[in-house]
């Protein structure tokens, strides 16, 4: 149970909350007479996730006919999800499901742990991401660099403007300043 990867089911904090509530619903229905697990999974998670969930049950040797075993598994699953670390990620675009999966995979691969994303979209970041993790905030977006560049451009153009003497309004136009056509 410790190496359980739930990135196929949940990636964000909101998805995790929804998943837990749906699990709770199935767990409550376990002891009913006409309870059928595949029907309940289909109803709550849809076709794809149902298959994945059934695979998960097989991988953990859970007897799908035993209501008590199912209930225990669901409870431990909910506890595991509640214990997952939440990473606040501010990015500059609307992420797709695949994008979130890619980010989630990166964490599993590089840090050997699954995290839940609390995604915020701020287009002023331009690109890259700002991360808040365990109370620490780091901004590795393009915005700080862009602002530096902009400041540099402005400071280099500002003195030039000052050194150029303003021509008196009544002065006649010289031949050098005259342009014909384009």
């Amino acid at each position, binding site marked *: 149970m410790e190496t359980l990867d739930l990135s196929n089911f949940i990636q964000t904090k909101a998805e995790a909350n929804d998943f837990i509530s749906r699990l709770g619903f199935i767990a409550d229905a376990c002891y009913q007479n006409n309870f059928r697990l595949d029907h309940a999974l289909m109803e709550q998670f849809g076709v794809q996730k149902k298959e994945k969930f059934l695979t998960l049950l097989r991988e953990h040797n859970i007897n799908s006919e035993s209501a008590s075993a199912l209930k225990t598994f669901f409870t431990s699953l909910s506890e595991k999800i509640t214990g997952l670390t939440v990473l606040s*990620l501010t*990015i*500059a*675009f609307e992420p*797709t499901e695949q*994008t979130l999966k*890619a*980010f989630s995979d*990166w*964490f599993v691969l*590089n*840090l050997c742990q699954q995290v839940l994303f609390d995604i915020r979209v701020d*287009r*002023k*970041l*331009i*690109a*890259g*991401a*700002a*991360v808040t*993790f365990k109370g*620490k905030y*780091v901004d*590795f*977006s*393009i*915005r700080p660099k*862009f*602002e530096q560049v*902009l400041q540099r451009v*402005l400071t280099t153009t500002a003195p030039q403007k000052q050194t150029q003497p303003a021509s008196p309004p009544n002065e006649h136009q010289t031949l050098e300043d005259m342009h014909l056509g384009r």
Partner: protein
Amino acid sequence: MLPALLFQITNFLLNLVIVLFLIFYLIKLRVKEKAVEEKTTKIDTNYHQVVDDALSKERKILADATFEADKIITDAKYVNTSSKTAIDHALSKMIDDINNETVDVTHDFKKSYIASLTQVSSTSVTDFEKIMKGLETDLQKQLKEFHETLLPNLEKELESYKQARIKQTEQTIIRVIQEASQEILNKTISLNDHQHLVIQSLEKVKQEGGFE
């Protein structure tokens, strides 16, 4: 035989006594009734007499009141007519007097008004000339003062205001350029590049130990 006779005699005597008593009682009752009838007749006679007296007195009072009222109305009519004539006469006299007086007053007022107007016009022309001269001098003085002190200050203030406005405009332009550039750059980057840049950012965070 003797007791039975005695009993019958006694019985006869008792019956006689009862009959006599009844006759006596009826006679007395009749006498009382007669007395009551007499009393009623007497009261009735008195009542009619009182009512007749009251009616005759009322008629007399009414006749006296009517006579008095007629007299008062006649007197009042006389007084009304005579007073009306007197008031009319007094009013017509008052109107005549007022008319005469108004004509006199108007004439006097007209005379004095023409006189005072002539006087005022002669004095105000000279006063006006004086005031105009004073105004011209003041105006020239103020104009000179304005050129010497106020105008340079005004020019200076205008210049500083101009500079502040230019600075403000420059800041606005920079902000607009910044926001527009950010927006444009954001949109020109593809989804794959965005994703790649985010993963690069995550790697930088990892390198700096941000995930520990």
